[in-house]
């Protein structure tokens, strides 16, 4: 992809991101002139940029949007929810079309038929300009009626059949010139006769013509219709000056619809990152410092050569190490900063999602976003997007009640979903709160038992909070009916595993009748992992600190066996335990220490504590974990590996996969 196109795509992305919230802002306050002006400017910029590449369909849609917004700006047309819907559709179209460019830069972006429909819908909302000199063609372009296609004349049907039998794609062109076209010196009949590969054609009078004594011969009242086997692009190009009066429809031909898309596999678009200049400057400064401190090493070597005492040399090396250590730490921090992005970029889509979904459900919902500037690593943010959508949809669908039900239970008709983000000691805390009906632990217990997620005894022993957190268990779905919105066969367990994949945790609190709150805690960055080092059968392994609750020593006799299940009692709680050797397929038995005690790592797996018997603990370490590639990637027991200070390789265990 060339650099200019890349730039275009990045800028388009930015414009679209800015446009979406403006459309919604105007919906709340249609009198916000500043917002209208800004929206118009952005759409205008987008159109101008697209013009550079002659993306005809994108331009067509944006042009219509621009004209409409110009009318809104000039108070000719009033801003309405319907208008917002149309604008959002147009913006979605541009978004889809431009993302198509990234996948396939050679194809002309945007489906002409769809573009036409969207542009028509936008233009249909336009009022008649109040005398202002409007050069943009007909103001209120009527939607082109294509009903005749539903019942093709027999000759047209035959022509279509034989053309498709010969492997051609048939497009129907409906050209309804506007009444005043003759005055502009147009000859629509001549225009349409120039179309190539016409296999059938006719002229129709959509409305019965008046008798000759009353006819206005200079107001066009004819419609021209034809079928052509030419490509849509070719047809559109020839009809480009009258495109607002033309509808091109591909005649249904179901057995060939799968044909395009065959050559979708291309080299992957390069993921790019937009970085603030000052962050790069900071990196540059640090590299400079690094270069300077590196120069101290030859000096040290020279001193050693000259016979300085080892003690002095050691002291100098240590001093120099401290300098380099400080710089590398700062470098690491700076490079992390480069990868940081504000959570606002992920949250930006939610106003739209909430608006569309609540309208569909007939609910009134207010979305509150807080802490959009909270930053986290790009990978973490990207991993957060889908689970977050799922959670918000769940709140909209199951959590918030219908307005009437809310009023009946003494709440305001309008429900609230609040998403707040904040940084908290090296982690990002994200809270999604709704004031809906909440989750009933009794119902959850019943359902969990019915679904076989837990036994009836277990249901009795867990507290309410543990009960509601069962919704994260695989195989559990709270809704009995599968709805269009949240019940797409994806349960909350998928949400949890997605969060856990980036080493985050998720927790749910709910009060019946008052609402539900979900708290997600995520690491700020993925690059550095804290691990607990454990030894088993003479080998060292790492376990991410997030998984570890505590490390304990348990006397061998304290392990009880019930059949194949072994448990220990820890502070009055029964924990299932397993031997790491067994999990890894190592034949060795766990080694006890001099007092005959076994080392047990208490970790949380899938939200429940379990004990893992290992040989010994070896402290903690900060490692830079790399995911496995190639053959190793297939071994799910390890989430990755890291190189230790002495050059040895540490394998980091993925406990959830081991169990």
């Amino acid at each position, binding site marked *: 992809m060339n650099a200019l196109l890349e730039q275009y795509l990045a800028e388009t992305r930015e414009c679209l991101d800015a446009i979406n919230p403006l459309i919604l802002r105007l919906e709340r306050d249609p009198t916000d002139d500043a917002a209208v002006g800004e929206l118009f400017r952005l759409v205008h910029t987008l159109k101008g940029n697209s013009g550079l590449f002659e993306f005809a369909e994108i331009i067509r849609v944006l042009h219509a949007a621009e004209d409409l917004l110009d009318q809104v700006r000039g108070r000719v047309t009033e801003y309405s929810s319907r208008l917002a819907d149309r604008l959002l559709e147009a913006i979605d179209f541009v978004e889809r079309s431009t993302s198509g460019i990234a996948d396939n830069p050679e194809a002309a972006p945007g489906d002409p038929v769809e573009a036409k429909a969207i542009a028509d819908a936008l233009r249909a909302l336009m009022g008649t300009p109040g005398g202002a000199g409007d050069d943009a063609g007909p103001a209120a372009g009527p939607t082109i009626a294509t009903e005749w296609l539903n019942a093709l004349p027999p000759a047209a049907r035959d022509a279509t059949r034989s053309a498709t039998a010969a492997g051609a794609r048939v497009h129907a062109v409906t050209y309804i*010139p506007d009444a005043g076209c*003759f005055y502009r010196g147009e*000859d*629509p*009949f*001549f225009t349409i*006769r120039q179309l190539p590969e*016409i296999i059938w*054609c*006719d*002229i*129709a*009078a959509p409305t019965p*013509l*008046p*008798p*000759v*004594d009353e*006819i206005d*011969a*200079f107001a*066009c*009242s*004819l419609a021209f219709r034809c079928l052509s086997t030419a490509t849509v692009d070719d047809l559109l190009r020839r009809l480009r000056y009258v495109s607002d009066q033309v509808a091109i429809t591909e005649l249904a031909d179901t057995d060939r619809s799968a044909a395009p898309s065959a050559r979708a596999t291309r080299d992957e678009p390069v993921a790019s990152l937009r970085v603030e200049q000052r962050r790069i400057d900071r990196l540059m400064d640090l590299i400079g410092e690094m270069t300077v401190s590196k120069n101290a090493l030859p000096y040290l070597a020279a001193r050693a050569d000259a016979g300085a005492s080892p003690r002095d040399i050691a002291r100098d090396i240590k001093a120099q190490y401290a300098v380099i250590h400080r710089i590398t730490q700062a470098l690491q921090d700076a490079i992390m900063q480069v990868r940081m992005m504000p959570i606002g970029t992920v949250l930006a889509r939610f106003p739209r999602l909430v608006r569309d979904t609540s309208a569909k459900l007939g609910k009134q919902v207010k979305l509150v976003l807080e802490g959009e500037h909270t930053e986290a690593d790009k990978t973490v943010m990207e991993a957060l997007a889908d689970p977050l959508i799922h959670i918000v949809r769940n709140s909209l669908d199951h959590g918030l009640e219908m307005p009437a039900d809310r009023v009946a239970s003494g709440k305001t008709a309008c429900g609230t979903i609040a998403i707040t983000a904040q940084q908290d000691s090296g982690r990002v805390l994200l809270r999604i709160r709704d004031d809906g009906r909440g989750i009933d632990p009794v119902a959850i217990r019943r359902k969990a038992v019915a679904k076989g997620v837990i036994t009836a005894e277990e249901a009795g022993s867990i507290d309410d909070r543990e009960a509601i957190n069962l919704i994260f268990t695989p195989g559990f779905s709270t809704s009995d009916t599968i709805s269009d919105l949240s019940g797409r066969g994806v349960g909350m367990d998928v949400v949890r595993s997605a969060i856990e994949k980036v080493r985050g945790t998720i927790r749910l609190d709910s009060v019946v009748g008052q609402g539900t709150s979900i708290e997600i805690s995520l690491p700020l960055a993925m690059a550095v992992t804290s691990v607990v080092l454990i030894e088993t059968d003479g080998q060292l392994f790492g376990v991410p600190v997030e998984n570890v609750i505590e490390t304990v020593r348990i006397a061998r006799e304290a392990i009880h066996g019930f059949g194949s299940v072994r448990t220990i009692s820890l502070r009055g709680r029964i924990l299932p335990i397993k031997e790491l050797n067994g999990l890894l397929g190592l034949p060795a038995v766990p080694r006890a220490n001099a007092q005959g005690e076994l080392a047990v790592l208490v970790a949380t797996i899938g939200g429940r504590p379990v004990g893992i018997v290992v040989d010994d603990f070896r402290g903690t370490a900060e490692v830079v974990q790399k995911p496995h590639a190639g053959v190793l990637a297939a071994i799910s027991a390890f989430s990755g590996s890291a190189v230790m200070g002495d050059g040895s390789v540490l394998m980091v265990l993925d406990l959830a996969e081991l169990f």
Partner: protein
Amino acid sequence: MSIILNHLEATFSDIVAISDADIVLEWVQQNQGVSVDLSACSHLHPAVIQILLASGACVSAWPTDPDLARWLSILRANPGSDQ
């Protein structure tokens, strides 16, 4: 001149432009049951087409240009003509 108007039959030839529409309109308004010979015609301005259509004029001879003839199927054939 691309149109010749007789009492009940007109002959159109070459290109009939919008500038001819006035004359044709007047002619159909004054005469009932008219017909047109389009055999030598290569193009008709749509203004003229809609006048012919509104007047119920018949086509006594179809254009020899097959493309034009195909387009004009909406016009009525003369009961006595070959099409």
